[in-house]
């Protein structure tokens, strides 16, 4: 029996000719990532091992992005620990405020991820890099502390769920709707411990931004990772970003999938995940009676230039509803700069939205847009768990940028077609 994309990458990094689902392997890692909320304790664990240096100072990435720019003194101390570790161990890839971004947008855009890589990050959305045909998975800080010392991690080879995409996306339907459709079908534990392997004729019609969004939310289906094939869209994205030679992996023709799912992109519509689980998915147009207090456009899921372009398309020449706070967060400094050059930021500001420097802030209930008791947000982020964005009785509706921007204008959850037709 053949291997999936994930299994081939794992086999190569374990120095094995072949691996099977369920095998426990020790694999070499190409990149290790941690951030400000995990960093201090990651380093404490690393230092317990007693190694004088990290396994490779060029393969460690440190990004202050969660409680950053620091929202209080405790957070400032955590960010300081990240900075100090970077200096002490001469870490090449430390990104300072003003030059940083949300890690999962920043690392690919900075050319740090290539097809066939194996990446471990102390953040659950590390799975985003599967969009570039890398095996990437979230681990805890103890795992990462050990990985900093050894350059290796233990992994159980996952069984696979195959997701065949066909057709092409209709107007106002993008990557977020694809992944919400999938999670709505299989549930938040539908791919638990498994890999989500995407293939089919529809893949070629997805932009890199769509693929990043889809891979990003693999964890919301419980998956270990999500992975796309490497094609000309991938290669075009990588041009000028990385000069490194890379080795993509394609699935064997006889690769085994425990389950196969087919999604016809042509049949999708703008979707929303209702509180308090990402699997509570409904069409946006069925939720048009639900009033919102806040709209957030950003995050590692939907803070890329394409996402901002979609929001700007809807908001251009329109005004945010009087009862709504709209918060737009470009995911990286580079995206911020491009959005400025393209006039998107002007569109947002003129519409009455707040535009923030890159941060994970509101997505995880850290800062920059916390919800008060009883408030409701539509958000392009990835989780709508109880209390995730603030008060325990606040509510989060997850959607893509088109729906979030349209909802910000009307003050209630809105299918973008409704606005466009107005």
């Amino acid at each position, binding site marked *: 029996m053949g291997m999936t994309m994930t299994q081939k990458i794992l086999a190569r990094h374990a120095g094995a000719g072949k691996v099977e689902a369920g095998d*426990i392997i020790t694999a070499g890692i190409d990149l290790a990532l941690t951030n400000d909320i*995990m960093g201090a304790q990651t380093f404490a664990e690393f230092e317990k091992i007693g190694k004088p240096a990290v396994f490779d100072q060029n393969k460690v990435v440190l990004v202050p992005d969660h*409680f950053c720019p620091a929202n209080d003194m405790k*957070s400032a101390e955590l960010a300081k620990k990240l900075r100090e570790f970077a200096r002490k161990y001469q870490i090449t890839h430390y990104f300072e405020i003003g030059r940083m971004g949300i890690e999962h947008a920043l690392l690919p855009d900075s050319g740090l991820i290539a097809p066939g890589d194996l990446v471990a990050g102390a953040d659950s959305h590390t799975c985003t890099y599967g969009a570039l045909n890398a095996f990437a998975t979230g681990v805890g800080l*103890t795992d990462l502390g050990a990985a900093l010392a050894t350059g290796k991690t233990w992994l159980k080879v996952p069984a696979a769920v195959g997701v065949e995409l066909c057709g092409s996306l209709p107007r106002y339907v993008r990557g977020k709707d694809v992944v919400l459709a999938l999670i709505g079908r299989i549930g938040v*534990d539908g791919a638990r411990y498994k890999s989500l392997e995407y293939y089919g004729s529809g893949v070629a019609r997805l932009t890199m931004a769509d693929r990043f969004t889809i891979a990003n939310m693999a964890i919301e289906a*419980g998956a270990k990772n999500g992975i796309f094939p490497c094609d000309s869209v991938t290669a075009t994205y990588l041009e000028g970003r990385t000069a490194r030679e890379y080795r993509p992996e394609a699935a064997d023709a006889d690769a085994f999938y425990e389950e196969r799912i087919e999604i016809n992109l042509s049949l999708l519509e703008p979707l929303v995940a209702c509180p308090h689980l990402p699997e509570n998915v409904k069409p946006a147009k069925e939720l048009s009676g639900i009033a919102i207090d806040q709209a957030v456009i950003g995050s590692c899921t939907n803070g890329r230039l394409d996402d901002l372009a979609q929001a700007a398309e809807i908001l251009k020449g329109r005004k945010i509803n009087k009862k709504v706070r709209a918060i737009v967060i470009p995911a990286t400094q580079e995206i911020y700069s491009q959005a400025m050059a393209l006039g998107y930021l002007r569109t947002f500001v003129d519409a009455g939205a707040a535009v923030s420097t890159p941060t994970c802030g509101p997505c995880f209930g850290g800062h920059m847009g916390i919800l008060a008791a009883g408030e409701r947000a539509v958000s392009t982020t990835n*989780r709508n768990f109880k*209390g995730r964005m603030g008060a325990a009785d606040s509510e989060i509706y997850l959607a893509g940028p088109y729906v979030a921007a349209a909802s910000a204008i009307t003050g209630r959850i809105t299918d973008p077609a409704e606005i466009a037709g107005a």
Partner: protein
Amino acid sequence: MREKTGNVWRYGHHVDTDVIIPARYLNIADHKELAEHAMEDIDADFAKQAQAGDYIVAGKNFGCGSSREHAPLVFKVRGVPVIIADSFARIFYRNAINIGLPVMEIGQEAEKIEDGDTLEVDVAKGEIKIANKNITITTKPLPGFIQEIAEAGGLINCVKGKN
């Protein structure tokens, strides 16, 4: 591993890391202070009343969401000897093992255990006795590789031992 007796705090499916320890507390460096907020958004009594030796028992996909190790950590700090669930989210499972907090995945047998039950658990044997009901649940012991980490007291000790 010694036998442990304690009371059960029973929860449902998909208990996520945001309710186990809300992110607003993730910048608290002191573990004891952090653990005072465990589960507070879904169960205010847990943080106030849970005693060292009490058990967490839950449904499917326990610990889904974030990779924050603070989630298993707050239970360890509160003296929870083992977490038992129908199934676990993978990062939580891994994190618990890595910090030396035993986890037992027992499938639908978890439904036999209710809030307030008294358990006696032998992790090494994979045996859970519901003392007040005289029911014994047996499950597969942890895989050898994982027991090795558990016996070393967590991943860091395990790695240190090999270096």
